[in-house]
């Protein structure tokens, strides 16, 4: 029989205001095996912990039940407390009477009754607890960063700087991400390329960083400290080791009509291409969808002009297997498609553009070489209308997103300001719901756009844009003066909402990392663990976790790197001792457990058993590798004969809890 101590926490008024903690302690004192029961204001405080330790000594406790907050919060704390007093830490059970009781009930009598039941279940479990000892597993001292935008680059640079190996997997032919397409950056108006490309080069030249460009993560197995990742290197039909990036092929390729994604399809590139001059790695890639040679077998010009002999039409996708200790997700964002917002005539007129397209139209490396020209007739526009919140803060109609995309107010102010500065003859209007400018020097920046550059900010939304006689007739309302406004604009620029990259959802499934309903990755704690995923060993960097501007992204990227370094600095991780264990005498050898195990922890072997009359039987039985098992329990459910059990969460313990609740 166990000697159990029960400790009921008030959690200040969090629990005590809804649960009669005295009554709970008194009632549970009468349970079989309970030799000590008390309540205290803050069990997790120094005084509370000492109270537990003292009781362990005085009453020779063999098991401890703490009725308090969720085990996610303080199970670790109380296990340490009890271990320090000489009790095996796995003899501690938490009854969650806060999140699952006091916080969700209003009636004190009801909540008290439930708290007693939850306590009783924990006591029933402790009776069947056995001391467990944790093993250790080694940490692979190498990190994987998925996504090579500014977030991924920054995280990789910081990890490499601390002396650890890090690989970047980028699905595009070059790293750099969205920031490569941006012209100037707010609030300082320095050129994006000027601050980004040195970092891209740093990453490429750093001997600790290996870049897998034009590659995707194919599968992820394993667990924190020991991930096994398969990376698909997509065939680019150019030998990366030979290509010098001279670009001869990209000027000779006869297939000239391929929409250039770097300029968002506003101009064309060749079928063999280097995305932009500062691409890293600077290696040509053949676009298999357009290459005449790959499609018909007739052409081969690039191969003839390539002095390095790098062209390889036979190249196939390659699968690379790597081991990592930590994985950082930095998959970034994309602007939403604005096709659904037809009132703005995006699909009817080329002069209606998104902000990212506008960014390219202003950029020296863009389709117009940095001179702002209307896409329709290549003339200089005089009246420009910016529409904010296209698809952001957009509830109900299912076309957009309910959240604020956060970056649009600032980049729209930037665009308006740059327009007025370069072309003082322009009239610039910005239609907004609210102007949101929290951030260092952000509001000052916006005020400058209004006060120094004379941008017309109008509170109100644009109702309709109609292309007519080479103009865009904009109908809008000014909510402050309560007037209808008609503007004959030359261009309309839409601040499209941003959403997580489409590759994020399947990746989350591979990583068993959770996501919110908008497909942004969820953090382990919204305030206190913002760069970790709830899945151990998976970290979040940049806009994959929520809309962010560049300074925030870089800050989070470095924070994620710090968390990765904390993990990689360890030689061993303490394993969870609550792992599966088969009863060989009952195992049928059916392999059900092996098939459902997500970690590959279960293997089968033929073993000799004693049969009747001194005979020997050979039976196929399961065994679990405790260093690999993560204690998820899938096998215990799959096992048809109940031979598989989970230490610390045995079927018997769970049934005892259910029985205690139903008593």
């Amino acid at each position, binding site marked *: 029989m166990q000697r159990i101590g029960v400790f009921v926490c008030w959690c200040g008024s969090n629990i005590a205001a809804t649960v009669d903690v005295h009554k709970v302690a008194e009632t549970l004192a009468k349970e079989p095996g309970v030799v000590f029961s008390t309540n205290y204001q803050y069990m997790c405080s120094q005084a509370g912990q000492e109270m537990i330790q003292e009781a362990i000594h005085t009453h020779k406790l063999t098991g401890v039940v703490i009725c308090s907050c969720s085990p996610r919060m303080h199970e670790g704390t109380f296990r340490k407390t009890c271990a320090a007093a000489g009790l095996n830490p796995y003899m501690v059970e938490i009854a969650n009477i806060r999140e699952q009781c006091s916080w969700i009930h209003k009636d004190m009598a009801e909540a008290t009754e439930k708290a007693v039941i939850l306590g009783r279940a924990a006591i029933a479990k402790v009776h069947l607890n056995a001391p467990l000892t944790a093993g250790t597993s080694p940490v692979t001292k190498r990190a994987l960063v998925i996504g090579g935008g500014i977030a991924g680059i920054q995280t990789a640079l910081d990890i490499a700087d601390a002396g650890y190996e890090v690989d970047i997997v980028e699905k595009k032919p070059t790293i750099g991400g969205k920031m490569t397409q941006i012209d100037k950056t707010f609030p300082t108006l320095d050129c994006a390329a000027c601050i980004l490309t040195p970092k891209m080069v740093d990453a490429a030249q750093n001997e600790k960083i290996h870049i897998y460009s034009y590659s995707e993560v194919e599968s992820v197995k394993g667990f924190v400290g020991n991930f096994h990742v398969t990376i698909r290197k997509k065939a680019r039909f150019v030998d990366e080791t030979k290509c010098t990036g001279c670009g001869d092929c990209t000027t000779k390729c006869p297939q000239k009509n391929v929409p250039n994604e770097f300029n968002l399809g506003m101009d064309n590139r060749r079928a063999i291409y280097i995305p932009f001059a500062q691409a890293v790695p600077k290696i040509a890639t053949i676009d298999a969808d357009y290459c005449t040679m790959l499609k018909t077998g007739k052409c081969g010009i690039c191969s003839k002009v390539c002095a390095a002999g790098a062209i390889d039409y036979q190249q196939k996708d390659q699968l690379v297997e790597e081991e990592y200790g930590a994985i950082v997700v930095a998959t970034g964002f994309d602007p939403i498609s604005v096709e659904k917002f037809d009132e703005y005539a995006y699909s009817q007129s080329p002069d209606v553009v998104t902000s990212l397209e506008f960014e390219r139209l202003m950029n020296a490396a863009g389709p117009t070489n940095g001179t702002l020209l209307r896409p329709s007739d290549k003339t200089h526009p005089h009246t420009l209308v910016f529409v904010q919140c296209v698809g952001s803060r957009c509830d109900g109609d299912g076309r957009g997103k309910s959240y604020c995309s956060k970056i649009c107010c600032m980049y729209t102010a930037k665009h308006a300001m740059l327009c007025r500065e370069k072309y003082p003859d322009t009239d610039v209007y910005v239609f907004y719901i609210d102007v949101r400018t929290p951030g260092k020097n952000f509001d000052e920046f916006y005020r400058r756009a209004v006060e120094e550059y004379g941008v017309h900010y109008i509170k109100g939304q644009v109702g309709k844009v109609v292309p007519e006689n080479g103009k865009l007739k904009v109908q809008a309302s000014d909510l402050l003066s309560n007037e209808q406004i008609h503007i004959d604009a030359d261009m309309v620029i839409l601040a499209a909402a941003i959403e997580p990259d489409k590759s994020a959802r399947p990746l989350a499934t591979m990583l068993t990392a959770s996501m919110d309903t908008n497909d942004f990755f969820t953090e382990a704690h919204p305030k206190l663990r913002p760069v970790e995923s709830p899945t151990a060993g998976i970290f979040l960097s940049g806009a994959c976790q929520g809309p962010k501007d560049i300074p925030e992204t870089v800050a989070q990227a470095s924070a994620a790197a710090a968390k990765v370094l904390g993990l990689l600095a360890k030689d061993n991780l303490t394993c969870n001792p609550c792992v599966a264990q088969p009863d060989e005498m009952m195992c*049928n050898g*059916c392999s*059900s457990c092996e*098939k*459902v195990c997500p970690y590959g922890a279960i293997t*089968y072997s033929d073993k000799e058993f004693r049969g009747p009359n001194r005979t020997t*039987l050979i039976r196929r039985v399961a065994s679990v590798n405790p260093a690999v098992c993560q204690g998820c329990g899938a096998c215990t459910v799959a096992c*048809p004969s109940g031979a598989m059990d989970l230490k610390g969460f045995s079927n018997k313990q769970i049934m005892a809890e259910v029985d205690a609740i139903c008593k």
Partner: protein
Amino acid sequence: MQEVMKKALELLQNGTVSRILGWKTGDFFYDLTPAVFESAEEVEKDFVFSPFCGANLSKYLIKESRKEGKIAVFLKPCDSYSFVQLLKEHRIIRDNVYVVGVACDGMCDIEKMKELGVKGVTAVREDGENLVCETLYGEKTVARKDALLERCVSCKSKKVVMFDEMLGENGEENPESHRFDKVAELEAMTPDERFAFWQNELSRCIRCNACRNVCPACSCEKCVFDNANSGIANKAAVTSFEEQNFHIIRAFHVASRCTDCGECSRVCPQHIPLHLLNRKFIKDINELYGEYQAGADMDTKPPLMNFTKDDCEPSIVHERGGDK
């Protein structure tokens, strides 16, 4: 029928196998029981293959395939599904088994024949669509279709899915078996009516364990019902309707591994339609996770032990279980 016995003799005599798993007469002519034959003499003396060979031989191979030497087994189409399912679960050592597939026109239910007035059967021969029975009371003829076991009336497949040799012509799967009609009828009932139906059926259970012992999916080293540690064996009876737990737990245990061979209902001395519980699971699995036949092949994973990204959400399962 003679062909089957001839094959058994041939396999023993040419040394392909050292033992034969087949059927022999039990207490009565129509009461056939699985048996292992080790010599040609034993085969000639006792081996029987008749329209009463309902017994599924697959399960016996769990033990027999682990013995010295190779064994030949005769598998009817439905038995072959159980055989493949057991192979998938690593329960049978394939190399030690020589499978002879036998085509099947459906096996007979002696209870049905008795109802038709054919009692005291001592011999039977096939005559086209009819069975001519010699009985203690003279020769009687019944149409085969009227005498079939329930599972043969709604036969799902006449295809032997795995064999080393086939006797007769292998048949096809029968998607038009209507085997789920009765389940659909039960689903259409109100919960109270359905409860009353099962209470009526299951209250006859005498816990003889015949269904469990015959079931090829019930092949655990130690059954949970015999394991005092499982917490199932020693639950106190809540009501007189206690045996519901046994059958429902059993149905859950074999779910997505049950091939619908129908042996549970065939052997039940109380004539409880136990196969309906299993068919309910099969029907639900088909509807929720796509068509799946346990034991149809070696590769597909049982839907309840597999996860794919397009699996239905638990809420859908929950909604279907509402107050219908």
